[in-house]
């Protein structure tokens, strides 16, 4: 097994080359410090921090946890770290030994296995006091969290968000809002203290601010040359996922945005030559970020936007700062992964137009069925509506056994040749 590289994998080798040094994003270091501090606090014995720990799905409503001073932990974020550290295969194999199917999502496999051996780059996640599962991202998380609730013998709260194939209606809203009230009672019971609604307003405002900043950062790539690529977004994303609703995230993103604006003012792009602009769909291939980033960079192709990282701000428009709890139901139900293929395709088409992309790269992800299911249809819709080339890469976000280098390389090369 190769040594853990953590997410440094995102960055090309920058030793000594002044041009590369200039292109490096300075905020990366700060980001690493914040994420390290977050995991150190979470792994500090609970007697010292006095804080409970909740494991929560990536699309779950985290803000009430912040209100209750509970530390949110994201097994999916850890799955990404496991993937980027190239420790995924070992853990996936372990889970298969335990009896799980290799067709199961590799985040679930890696997490379930990691729990039993304290695996992964930080030697396992801190044990949870409760589990919060929201099925707006997929159905896999239900069974995955049930397994973990049994393993750790802790309470599990399930927030069921109906799929919005085309619309979100008042019945849906009532259904989800009721559950959010139950969620709050669940937290009050476990934490043994009443829910602070004033604090909720503060956290809600910070969440909205964080999402708005994240969107602004992603939008800096509308500039030519783009000051960052989606490979950078994959790295800086961790903050809006794990620390959404905190001042830390807001402060960090303010400084990152300022750096992006500076880069734009100075004309610094992430690529030395930006010839083609592309949109990425689906989760990153965590163990191949650097390889992929280099492949596209060498071919002067800049991945200016992606559907994945924008997933954490794309339904922000449904939030109402004056009624965060009430509007949160709609926001969390209407995330794009919980919508129909037409809406998902439309989302990509809008990105193509907004970021003036020349092509779309689809990662057909063996793990993530809800994300990958409609991709062939989306390909067709995109070709029909905007008439630009698309590329399909078959892989998996964490399980390297699903990746074939020469196949992927040939496809990327042929795709770039089509753009010419």
């Amino acid at each position, binding site marked *: 097994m190769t040594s853990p590289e953590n997410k440094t994998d995102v960055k090309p080798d920058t030793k000594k080359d002044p041009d590369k040094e200039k292109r490096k994003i300075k905020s990366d270091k700060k980001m690493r410090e914040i994420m390290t501090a977050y995991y150190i606090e979470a792994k500090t014995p609970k007697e010292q921090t006095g804080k409970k720990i909740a494991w929560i799905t990536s699309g779950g409503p985290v803000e009430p946890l912040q209100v209750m001073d509970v530390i949110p932990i994201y097994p999916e974020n850890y799955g990404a770290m496991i993937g980027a550290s190239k420790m995924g295969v070992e853990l996936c194999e372990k889970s298969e030994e335990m009896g799980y199917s290799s067709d199961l999502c590799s985040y679930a496999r890696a997490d379930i296995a990691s729990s039993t051996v304290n695996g992964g780059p930080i030697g396992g996640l801190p044990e949870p006091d409760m589990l919060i599962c929201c099925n707006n991202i997929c159905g896999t998380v239900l069974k995955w969290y049930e397994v973990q609730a049994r393993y750790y013998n802790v309470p599990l709260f399930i927030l069921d968000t109906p799929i919005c194939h085309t619309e979100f209606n008042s019945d849906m809203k009532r259904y989800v809002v009721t559950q959010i009230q139950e969620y709050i009672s669940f937290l009050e019971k476990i934490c043994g203290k009443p829910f602070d609604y004033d604090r909720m307003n503060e956290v809600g405002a910070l969440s909205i601010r964080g999402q708005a900043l994240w969107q602004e950062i992603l939008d800096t790539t509308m500039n030519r040359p783009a000051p960052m690529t989606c490979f950078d977004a994959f790295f800086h994303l961790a903050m809006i996922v794990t620390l959404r609703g905190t001042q830390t995230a807001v402060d960090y993103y303010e400084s990152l945005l300022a750096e992006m604006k500076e880069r734009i003012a100075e004309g610094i792009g992430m690529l030395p030559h930006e010839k083609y602009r592309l949109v990425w769909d689906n989760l990153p291939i965590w163990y191949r970020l650097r390889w992929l980033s280099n492949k596209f960079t060498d071919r002067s192709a800049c991945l200016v936007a992606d559907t994945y990282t924008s997933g954490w701000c794309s339904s922000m428009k449904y939030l109402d700062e004056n009624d965060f709890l009430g509007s949160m139901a709609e926001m969390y139900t209407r995330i794009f992964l919980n919508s129909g293929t037409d809406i998902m395709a439309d989302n990509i088409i809008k990105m193509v137009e907004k970021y003036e992309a020349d092509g779309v790269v689809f990662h057909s992800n063996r793990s993530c069925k809800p994300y990958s299911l409609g991709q062939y249809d989306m390909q067709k819709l995109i070709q029909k509506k905007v008439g630009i080339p698309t590329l399909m890469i078959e892989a998996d976000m964490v399980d390297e056994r699903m990746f074939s280098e020469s196949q992927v390389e*040939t496809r990327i*090369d042929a795709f770039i040749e*089509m753009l010419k």
Partner: protein
Amino acid sequence: MITAGVDVGSISAKAAVMKDNSILKACVILTGYNAQNAGKQVFDMVLSELGMKASQIEKIVATGYGRNSITYADKAVTEITCHAAGANFLNPEVRSIIDIGGQDSKAIVIDERGKVKDFAMNDKCAAGTGRFLEVMARALEVDLDAFGELSLSADHIASISSLCTVFAESEVISLISKGEKRENIIAGIHASIGARVMAMGKRIGISAPIMMTGGVAKNIGVVKALEGKFNTSILVSENAQVNGAIGAAIIAASLN
């Protein structure tokens, strides 16, 4: 202008030399263990058959899986783009290409200038490729070159349903033990390749005229199976196997 194309695939390496839109010579050898060597050897071979020296070739394009190991080439271009250029050269009417090579199968849709509009490839699986046929030939103890002819005398098509090469091989073995005729089994193998390729082709909107390229195009049984699936006749050039190398040589002529 004299140019060359070298196509190093997983099973065979091909080289073609062209002069102003006509093919001077093309050669094929087995790739074997060392792709770089094979690329060198096949190029030397085509030169010696022509009695030419490397210095007489103005531009060289390498393609195929070994394309990046051909150090003497001026440029590496994928086999997808090269097959498109080659097919367009052989027959400008062609709008779609089915290329079945050693380790992959591809469907390519091209425009009237031979530019790739869309393509699909098999994923990380050898089913529906030349290697798949090799495995089956071994299981049936039949020379692969006889596969095509034999399948034409089948009285029905044996069913082979597994998508996995290894499982399909055991299906074949169990058909043999049940006393199924060899010809029928071979026809079944061709039908299963046809079904795979059809799914890929439909996905990208393949349309006639369709040309088949790559080494497997020499197998009349696979061609017939594909014609049945796509419900149209399929063009096969005598240069099918070296089409990628020809395309590479054509692209070489456009390099400056």
